[in-house]
C-alpha cells in the first residue's frame, strides 16, 4: 500500500543551532493512527510543523498523498488538517464564523450542512453563535478540532490533543479519534501520555532528541520489548531465597512474602513450570500467583533512557 505520508531523511537545525530533527524517515499508511511519543523538546512538534508547512526543513523531503510539500504545496496541504498544541483562537469571532473561515481558507466552497453536522459531532452546535473568548478550554480544544476538520481532510495531525484536559474530555477525544479513523481519516498524534498511545494508536513511534528511535505496531512493540513478570505470593514470609532457587532470577519483596520472576514471554521455555516445581520442592507454600505485562510507559522509559 502506498504511504499517505512519506518522510525521507528529514533534518531540522534552528538558527540557534539546536538540532531538532536528525535524519528522520517514516512512512504512514492511509487510515492508521500513529502516535508519536517523546518527552518535551524531542522534536515531535517540529516534525508535524514541517509536514504542515509551518517550519522549513533543513534537509530531506516529505510527500503527502504523493505530493511534495514544497513543489505541490497546494495539493499536499489541502489533504491536511492540523490541531495545534496551544489554544490559538481569535477572541472576537463566533464558533460558526471561525469554522467557515477555516473551510474557505482551504479552498472549499461553503457547506453549512457539513459544518452543522461537524459541530453536532463535537457537541458544539448550541455554541455556534458564541464568541470564542466565552468558551471553556475544553470547548476551545473542540473548536480547534472542528476548524481542522472543516475542510474534510484525509489526514489529521493532533499535536498533544489532550494536554491539560480533564479525564472525561480526554475519553471523548479518544472516541472522536476512533470515529474519524472509521471514516477513513489518517491520524497522527503527538503525546507524552503513554496511556493515550496505548489506548488509541495502531502504531507507536518513539522520538527523542530529534531521533526517531523506533516505529512499531503497538502490540508488536509491547510483545517485542515488553517483559512479563510472575508474581508469587507466599503463604509464609521467608528471610532469604532458598539456595535451591538461586538459579532463578528471583526478587524477594521487603516483607519476604512475595517472589517476582521476570521472563521473556517470547521464549519457548519460559521456565515458569520448572520454577513452580522448584518452589514446591523447596517447601514453600504458594498463596497466589499472578502475571503482569510491561506497559508502553515502561517500554518508552527504557527506550529513552537507553540512548545517551
Amino acid at each position, binding site marked *: 500500500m502506498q504511504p499517505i505520508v512519506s518522510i525521507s531523511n528529514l533534518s531540522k537545525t534552528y538558527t540557534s543551532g539546536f538540532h531538532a530533527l536528525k535524519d528522520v524517515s517514516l512512512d504512514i499508511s492511509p487510515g492508521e493512527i500513529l502516535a508519536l511519543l517523546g518527552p518535551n523538546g524531542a522534536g515531535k512538534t517540529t516534525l508535524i510543523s514541517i509536514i504542515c508547512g509551518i517550519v522549513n526543513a533543513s534537509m530531506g523531503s516529505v510527500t503527502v498523498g504523493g505530493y511534495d510539500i514544497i513543489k505541490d504545496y497546494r495539493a499536499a496541504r489541502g489533504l491536511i488538517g492540523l490541531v495545534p498544541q496551544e489554544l490559538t483562537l481569535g477572541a472576537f469571532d463566533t464558533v460558526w464564523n471561525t469554522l467557515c473561515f477555516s473551510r474557505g481558507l482551504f479552498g*472549499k466552497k*461553503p457547506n453549512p450542512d457539513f459544518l452543522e453536522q461537524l459541530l453536532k459531532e463535537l457537541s458544539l452546535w448550541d455554541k455556534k453563535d458564541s464568541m470564542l473568548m466565552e468558551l471553556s478550554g475544553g470547548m476551545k480544544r473542540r473548536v480547534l478540532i472542528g476548524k481542522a476538520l472543516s475542510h474534510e481532510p484525509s489526514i489529521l495531525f493532533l499535536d498533544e490533543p489532550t494536554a491539560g484536559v480533564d479525564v472525561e474530555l480526554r475519553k471523548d477525544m479518544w472516541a472522536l479519534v476512533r470515529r474519524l479513523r472509521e471514516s477513513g481519516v489518517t491520524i497522527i498524534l503527538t503525546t507524552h501520555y503513554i496511556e493515550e498511545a496505548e489506548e488509541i494508536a495502531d502504531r507507536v513511534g518513539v522520538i527523542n532528541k530529534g531521533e526517531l528511535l523506533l516505529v512499531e505496531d503497538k502490540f508488536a512493540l509491547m510483545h517485542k520489548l515488553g517483559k512479563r513478570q510472575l508474581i508469587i505470593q507466599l503463604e509464609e514470609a521467608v528471610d532469604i531465597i532458598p539456595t535451591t532457587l538461586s538459579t532463578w532470577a528471583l526478587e524477594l519483596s521487603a516483607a519476604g512474602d512475595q517472589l517476582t520472576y521476570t521472563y521473556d514471554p517470547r521464549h519457548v521455555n519460559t521456565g515458569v513450570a520448572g520454577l513452580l516445581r522448584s518452589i514446591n520442592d523447596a517447601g514453600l507454600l504458594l498463596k497466589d500467583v499472578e502475571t503482569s505485562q510491561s506497559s508502553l510507559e515502561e517500554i518508552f522509559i527504557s527506550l529513552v533512557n537507553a540512548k545517551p
Partner: protein
Amino acid sequence: MNIYAVKVIYKYEMLRALHTLAQSFASPVISTALYFVVFGSAIGSRIEQIDGVSYGTFIVPGLMMLALLTQSIANASFGIFFPKFTGTIYELMSAPVSFIEILLGYVGAAATKSFIIGLVILATAGLFVPLDIAHPVWMLGFLILTCISFSLFGFIIGLWANNFEKLQLIPMLVITPLVFLGGSFYSVNMLPPVWQTITMFNPVVYLISGFRWSFFEVADVSVWLSLTIVLGFLGACLITVWWMFKSGYRLKQ
C-alpha cells in the same frame, strides 16, 4: 487561484473594521474635520491664497493623504500582526494559499477601508470648503494607488514587527513626520531654497503633489514623476513582500 481563501480573509478583515466602526471610520473622519476647523477656518482665514486656491481648499488633498497613509498602514499592519501575536497565523501558513492570495485578502481589505475613509473625508471636506476636482479620474487613480501601496507597506511592517512597539515605530517616527513635511499644509515653493532641495528627498512630496494636481492642476513636481514614484514604491513593496514569503522571514523558522 484559491478564491475562497481570498474571500474569507477579505470578509474577515472587513468585518473586523465593522466591529470597530468608531475606531476604523469615525476616528479618522473626526480628526480630519478638526484639522479643517483649526487649519482651514481658524488659521486658513488669515492666510492668502496659494497658487490661486484658498488655503482651506488647498489643504484638502494633503489631509486626505495624511489620513490615507496612516489608516492604510495601521489597518494592514494590524491585520497580519494580530494573527502572529495570537498564534493563529499557523492556520494561514498551513493552508493551501499563495502569497498573492494572502495579499489580495489582507491588503485588499485594508486598501478598501482606506479608500472608503478617503471618500468620507472628501465628502466631509465638501461641508467645510468649496471643492472642484479638475481631474476626477486621476484623483481616483492616485487615491487607489496610494491605498494599495501603503496598505502593502503596512503589511510589510506587520510581518516585520514582533512586538507592539515595533508596530507603532515606523508609522509614528517615519510616516507621520514625512507626511507633515511633505507639503500637506503648504506648497513646497513656500520653503527657503535649501529646504526645498531637502524636501525633494521626501517621497511623500511627490504623492501629495500629484494628488493635489488632480484637484487643482497645481503641483510642486510633474504629475508623471509623481505617478512614477508611486508605482515604483508599489513595486518595491510587492518585491519585499514576495521575498518575505519566499524566505519565510519572521513567518517560518
